[in-house]
């Protein structure tokens, strides 16, 4: 290529533009790029394998390990149980993946999630209809995400960590103030109860909703202009803006999505417990971040997929359920989970940097 170019450039056409030569006839566009050939499929599989291989191997190893060592782990009952327990976590992780792909992070989901449940309980206590209450809570959360987190981060350009940590603290305070620390009972709503507790065979209803959120998220990220824009904003916000993408709007929307999904999670929790209270684990946001990182999304955004986050969720849920059944104490479980998290992400980085 360089040999060719270092030859004298023929002067053609326009005088005064000696360096500007007409096009060399390029390869004819025969449309072969349009079909997905077998080779193309194979290439995609290999690419996917490179992205997820580490996490998938870890998940399988963990399942094998627990199946051998922990009696009762490899059973339909535990499968349903684990899926049920971690469905809300999956929904939250889908939301936080959007913000992380867009170059941010939303820690406030751990505040939105319980508060959404409490507001739902309050609305029901004031005799609003259930459907209206659910709608108000979800729409309200989306608006909160867009107008508070999204506005401050996307428009005012305040650091996402500060903003979402601040709103997490504020929302926790608000929840305590609202309920004065007490728990609100919610009963007499069959739909909410089903949401928390109904199973279809081995498939829990809330697990289905979690998977529906995941699939919807994957479709949005892969097949809509907004999804592509999330990657662009996370990959290089300046470039995206220069290319005409409304970067502030995209950022706002990602925080709307994460808050909205956190509210959905909060509603499911209300159904599960039959009550709403401020006691939810505030580190759930950070654990969701860990799932996303295990799944290969880059800190700083622009790289990774929801499928990867899903694998991260499976990993953490298998780990949690295995330790639980094995009778490991909650304190020790936290210790192990923390160590495994760091080890998993480190191993993944090592594997990738070797390439």
């Amino acid at each position, binding site marked *: 290529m360089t040999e060719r170019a270092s030859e004298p450039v023929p002067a053609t056409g326009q005088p*005064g533009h000696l360096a500007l030569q007409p096009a060399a006839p390029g390869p004819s566009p025969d449309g072969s790029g349009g079909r997905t050939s077998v080779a193309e499929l194979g290439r995609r599989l290999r690419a996917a394998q490179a992205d997820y291989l580490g996490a998938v191997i870890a998940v399988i190893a963990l399942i094998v390990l627990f199946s051998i060592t922990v009696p009762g782990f490899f059973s339909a009952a535990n499968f349903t149980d684990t899926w049920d327990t971690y469905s809300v976590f999956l929904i939250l992780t889908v939301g936080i993946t959007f913000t992380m792909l867009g170059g941010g992070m939303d820690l406030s989901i751990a505040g939105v999630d319980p508060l959404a449940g409490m507001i739902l309980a309050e609305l029901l206590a004031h005799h609003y209809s259930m459907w209206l209450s659910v709608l108000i809570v979800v729409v309200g959360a989306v608006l909160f995400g867009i107008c508070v987190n999204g506005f401050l981060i996307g428009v005012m350009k305040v650091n996402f960590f500060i903003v979402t940590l601040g709103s997490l603290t504020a929302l926790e305070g608000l929840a305590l103030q609202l309920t004065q620390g007490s728990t609100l009972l919610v009963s007499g709503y069959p739909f909410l109860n089903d949401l928390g507790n109904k199973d279809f065979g081995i498939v829990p209803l809330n697990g289905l909703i979690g998977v529906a959120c995941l699939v919807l998220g994957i479709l949005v990220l892969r097949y809509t*202009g907004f999804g592509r824009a999330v990657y662009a904003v996370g990959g290089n916000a300046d470039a995206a803006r220069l290319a005409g993408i409304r970067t502030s709007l995209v950022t706002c929307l990602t925080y709307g999505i994460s808050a909205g999904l956190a509210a959905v999670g909060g509603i499911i929790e209300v159904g599960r417990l039959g009550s709403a209270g401020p006691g939810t684990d505030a580190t759930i946001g950070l654990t969701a971040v860990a799932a996303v990182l295990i799944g290969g999304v880059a800190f700083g955004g622009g790289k990774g997929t929801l499928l990867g986050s899903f694998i991260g969720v499976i990993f953490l849920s298998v780990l949690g359920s295995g330790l639980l059944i094995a009778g490991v104490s909650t304190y020790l479980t936290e210790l192990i989970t923390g160590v495994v998290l760091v080890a998993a992400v480190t191993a993944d980085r090592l594997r990738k940097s070797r390439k």
Partner: protein
Amino acid sequence: MHVLEARGITKSFGAAPVLRDVDITVQPGEIVALAGENGSGKSTFAKIVSGTVAASAGTIRLDGHLLPAGNPQQAARSGVGIVPQEITGVPELNVAENILLPLNHSLLSLRRRHGQAVVRPLLDRLGVSADLDAPFRSLPTSTAVLVELARALITQPKLLIIDETTAYLERTAASVLLDVLRAIRDDGVAVMFISHRLPEVHELADRTIVLRDGSLVGEVPRAQSSPDRIARMMVGREIEVHKRGQTRTAAPPRLTVENVRLGPGAAPLSLQVRPGEVVGLTGLVNSGCAALLDHVAGARSLGSGTVRVDGTAITRTGPRGALAAGVVLLPGDRQKEGLLRDASMTSNIMLGTWPLASWASLRREGRMARRFVGDFGIRPDAPARPARLFSGGNQQKMMLARAIRRDPAVLLLNEPTRGVDVGARADVYRVIGESLRSGVSVLFYSTDMHEVIELSDRVLVLYDNQLAAELAGDQITEDNISRLMGGG
């Protein structure tokens, strides 16, 4: 005895060879100029000698001792001082601390004493009167460069490398620097001077080594040197005499910029570009050229003046307003403002295609991008490969493909061939030429003098955020441009 003895230096970044089997030696008390076009490998060679880049093959000896590859500390200890291409002083430290940075890493207390004893005389010698306690960030560029030079000299190097440092300087400041370099040479230091200001190279160098496309193409001793001769060797062919002034159709201007103030207190600037016309902007760094392009593209508004396309003023702010009017910018810093490093080549070319509320078909996107890969000669032809794995030239072609894909009426190019090898450069010029024939107006900024001279129908030289002169036809000469750039 050689101070520097580089043998068989070879370097590739990815697949692109940057240096091929280069042998260079430098004697004490000699100024050797390294000349070559952008992307010829000059700076890479300097970085290999100073240890910031490891060579793929070859050896560097300093005073006969082998230097370990890619070890800047060892290179510095062995006597290599470098004034790098980019200003690298620590903004928050003061002048003395910056200069003493290479000496003491932990002995903060010694700085003040050193400052009095060593730094002042050194700065006096360089003709710098700046306060030793002044923070580096407060220095004007011309002084900052000399402070960087002082920092390189504080270790009393045997070999001093100056990489494009005069590019930041006005003519008078540059000539001060040249005098300083002569004095340093007379002290017995070997100086390697990298520049593409050919008159300077000719004036200063005892010997000029010319690199082209990564290979050493020749050496010219001072007695036989002339700017023309060096230029011919750099480009590898006779430089043609251009016939300009070809009458263009009296079409109404496509791009009109009126009364833009590029800096506070600067006189307003206006310009017009007709369809199929190329107007080149040039000036020193921070002369306002890049700011003007950013303003017209809506990237960073200067808050004054009007921009019209085909007579219609752009009222919407931001890049979206400019893009809607058909004004497309090729950003100057492709890593920072252009490339999605982890995204595929296809996504990079098609960035900005899809409205937020639309179905984005990956397949259609791939098909649309396909066309450009061939047309622009992007190599390797791997649409799904992340952009960061491509060479600089091919990344630049992706950026250009993204701009052309929008079917622009006005193309704004900021340093269209910065850090691009010679082959890719020809592709870039070819693509620009095709756009011109279809009636696109091109306004571009380049610090590469040859590029400005070769491409432009008219040249606007900016100095200190104002229009210094407009040159057309036979007025477009290297002498005129470099004189006006420096405010002459």
